[in-house]
């Protein structure tokens, strides 16, 4: 029953774009049907998840033979996949509603139907990835997901989009290659492609599988330095696609790492350590790069990198707890990581959708050209603010709960053998938190506060309901989790408890998350904070209403202020970015201002993509120089090609017929 519903949901997702293909290019009907199917699929999936959580905590599974050689059609739902499935059933349907207004079929007659098709397949393939329990099926779904994401992200055809799409395609295929190796190794070590617990896995094989999983899934999740594809692809994709990619698709990488790690026996300490270190590096680098960006969607993309880093740190803590034999670390690490998966899956789509609304209204993604939009687009500004508060992990929104659980986990690990690791992670998390606040103060003040710069925001106004409703729904979700984290904690806790080794300790040693992390206090503190803000707002409003006079926002005592006198987002970020200049390799040309009446001067800055420019591009160029040597093989002579065929035939005959070992 549960699986039938899930399959129905996946089918509805995957087929949602089909009707639009048969309708006229300028008819909105297909797009509406796609959105309807997406919403229906999402509802079906959520009902299935509800049934699964309420009725059968251990989940449902199905294994059937299918025509693919070596492998079976094995699917299952367990608490871990439920966590990710919930996101898949919530965010893409909301995004498709958003797409009705954002990517109007009449305006985008050429790409609309194609985008809807790829978008639906992307959502369906992600759900399939989350339930697949067979290596072959997993890889098929994974590749479908990667390709659908490519076609969805490159809907807007242009040179920059095309370049970003290529980089994404290369990165995702390198990752998939690692996964091929991983599953081949898995089959060799366990004897089957089935993704079942493998307690007898030899340690060397397990280590190799873990490293391959970390790299292969790390490409998708965007662990530094494997994140090269991420900013470009997110920035150039349509906003609801960026929202799904960032909010959900990156998490499939996290899911893959967690899934593979949960199947293998007792992890050695270096697994958790590596994951934590990778997470810390990813988090700090991600947020520093985010501050340096000038493009609003690139800021959000790098901030996704940062959040994946936080999730990876939590997962690393769980693995560490697993190898140290401390269930409470597993619970805290996994609860924090999985809750953050949800949180990021809600607030990052909210922010991307908000950025899309800003782009639609102003026609630019450059923060330097925006400003003062809070007055023209109050609803979008308020929703974006909610998302920003959430992503900065400030109460009363949802980011706070997950990061708090992670802090508790890191502090709990201090007494153990790995205290240095845990302490570093805690410091890194604190650093990330502070920088995230700076980053979102910068972007929010640059885009929404102050005065408009240039005329890009002149005709901006709040968008229609199809854009605002999904954003409001996401903001409500953020607020709900932020105010009452204990509501959804059971689902997260169930997933954490299903981890091998986490549920073992019972009786006296049983660890109570409620005691370690009194989430009830978060609700109370959040409500108190809201009440306090409301009081303050009312008080200032009463005081102001007596003598309200319209003034430009940034007066500063000048007689004739102009919008160009405002602090720009770059100048705001420069102070922080300067601290990390060795890491960031500044490309700013600074001009010093001399004399009392300095002449005109210019400052140019280009935010670098360090990993892409310094690592990936030279590597690619080296490969590009090497590969032409293989042209020796391609001579265009039929005879030569036939000779290759003959040689291969003889080798195969020798291997197959005579048993010559390769």
């Amino acid at each position, binding site marked *: 029953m549960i699986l039938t519903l899930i399959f129905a949901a996946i089918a509805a997702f995957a087929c949602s774009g089909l009707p639009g293909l048969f309708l006229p290019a300028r008819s909105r009907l297909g797009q509406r049907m796609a959105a309807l199917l997406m919403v229906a699929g999402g509802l079906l999936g959520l009902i299935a998840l509800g049934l699964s959580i309420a009725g059968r905590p251990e989940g449902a599974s199905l294994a059937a033979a299918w025509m693919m050689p070596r492998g079976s059609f094995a699917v299952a739902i367990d608490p871990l996949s439920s966590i990710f499935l919930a996101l898949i059933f919530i965010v893409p349907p909301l995004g498709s509603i958003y797409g009705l207004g954002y990517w109007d079929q009449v305006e985008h007659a050429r790409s609309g139907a194609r985008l809807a098709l790829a978008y639906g397949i992307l959502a369906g393939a992600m759900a399939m990835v989350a339930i697949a329990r067979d290596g072959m099926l997993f890889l098929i779904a994974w590749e479908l997901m990667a390709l659908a994401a490519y076609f969805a992200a490159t809907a807007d055809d242009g040179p920059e989009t095309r370049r970003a799409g290529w980089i994404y395609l290369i990165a995702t295929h390198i990752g998939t290659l690692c996964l091929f190796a991983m599953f081949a190794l898995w089959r060799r070590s366990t004897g089957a492609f089935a993704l079942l617990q493998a307690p007898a896995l030899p340690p060397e094989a397990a280590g190799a599988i873990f490293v391959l999983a970390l790299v292969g899934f790390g490409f998708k999740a965007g662990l530094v330095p494997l994140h090269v594809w991420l900013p470009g692809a997110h920035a150039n994709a349509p906003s609801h696609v960026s929202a799904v990619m960032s909010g959900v698709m990156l998490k499939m990488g996290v899911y893959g790492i967690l899934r593979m790690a949960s199947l293998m026996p007792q992890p050695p300490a270096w697994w958790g350590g590596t994951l934590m270190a990778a997470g810390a590096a990813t988090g700090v680098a991600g947020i520093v790069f985010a501050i340096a960006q000038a493009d609003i969607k690139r800021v959000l993309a790098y901030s996704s990198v940062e959040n994946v880093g936080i999730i990876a740190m939590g997962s690393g803590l769980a693995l560490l707890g697993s190898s140290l034999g401390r269930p409470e670390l597993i619970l805290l690490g996994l609860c924090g990581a999985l809750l953050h998966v949800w949180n990021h899956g809600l607030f990052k789509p909210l922010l991307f959708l908000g950025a899309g609304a800003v782009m639609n209204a102003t026609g630019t993604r450059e923060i330097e050209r925006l400003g003062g939009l809070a007055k023209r687009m109050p609803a979008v500004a308020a929703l974006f603010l909610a998302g920003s508060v959430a992503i900065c992990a400030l109460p009363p929104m949802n980011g706070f709960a997950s990061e708090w659980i992670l802090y508790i986990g890191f502090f709990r690990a201090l007494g153990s053998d790995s205290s240095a690791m845990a302490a570093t992670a805690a410091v890194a998390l604190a650093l990330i938190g502070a920088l995230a606040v700076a980053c979102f103060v910068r972007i929010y003040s640059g885009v929404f506060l102050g005065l408009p710069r240039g005329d890009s925001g002149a005709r901006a106004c709040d968008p229609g309901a199809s854009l605002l409703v999904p954003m409001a729904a996401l903001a409500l979700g953020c607020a709900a989790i932020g105010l009452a984290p204990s509501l959804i904690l059971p689902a997260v806790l169930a997933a954490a408890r299903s981890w091998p080794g986490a549920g073992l300790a019972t009786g006296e040693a049983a660890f109570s998350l409620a005691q370690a992390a009194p989430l009830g206090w978060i609700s109370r503190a959040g409500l108190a904070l809201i009440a306090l803000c409301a009081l303050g707002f009312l008080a200032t409003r009463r005081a102001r209403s007596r003598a309200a006079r319209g003034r430009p926002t940034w007066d500063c005592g000048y007689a004739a202020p102009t919008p160009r006198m405002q602090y720009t987002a770059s100048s705001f970020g420069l102070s922080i970015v300067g601290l990390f200049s060795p890491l960031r390799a500044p490309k700013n040309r600074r001009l010093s201002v001399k004399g009392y009446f300095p002449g005109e001067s210019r400052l140019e800055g280009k935010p670098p993509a360090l990993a892409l420019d310094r690592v990936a591009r030279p590597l690619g160029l080296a490969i590009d120089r090497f590969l032409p040597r293989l042209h020796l093989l*391609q*001579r*265009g*002579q*039929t*005879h030569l090609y*036939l*000779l290759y*065929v*003959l040689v291969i*035939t003889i080798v195969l*005959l020798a291997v197959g*017929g*005579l048993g010559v070992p390769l």
Partner: protein
Amino acid sequence: MTDLINALLVVILVLNLFALGTSRIQSVIRIVAVQGALLGLVTLLMHERWTVPVALSAVAAVLIKAIVIPAVMVRSLRAAEIKREVEPFIGFLPSIILGAVATAAALLFTRSLATGAVAAAPSLIIPASIATVLVGFIILISRFKAISQVLGYLVLENGIYIFGMLLIEAIPLVVEMGMLLDLFVGVFVISIITNHINQAFSSMDTRRLVSLKE
């Protein structure tokens, strides 16, 4: 009966070497035609009882391999007005030696490949088929003219056809007919194309047909 089949297969093997060592294209066409006729005969001999499908298959093989295809090729050879020599990449004698080595290797290889189907069949079927396939490959690789490559393809197909006789019970008649039809259409098309390429570029040397390699 088995002895007769084996004797015919030996003739086929000898014809292979002839095809490698002949310089006139028209002679090679004739050799391949004789090979096709022998194959039809072998098909008949392989069966204890001659049913309609078997007879049909044998007649079709003889008709297509020994009469229609050679006729088409001779026609296209005339129409193309090319020099009627083979122009090998590897000389005639080395080609024959290579072919002999391939035949010997095939015989040796089959001895170590003693499976059930092999044991029951006339002893030369598998080595003859492998040797013929290899010889077909050698012709394909070492000849430059498009038309002699077609001949290599035909020899290759003859090798596959010999192997198919082992499975004559398993492979339905329809499949075999389909294979023959494929072959016929393939040769027909290549002959026409050769003609046209010759008219357009005044050369049929496949060494020159490399500009589309990328």
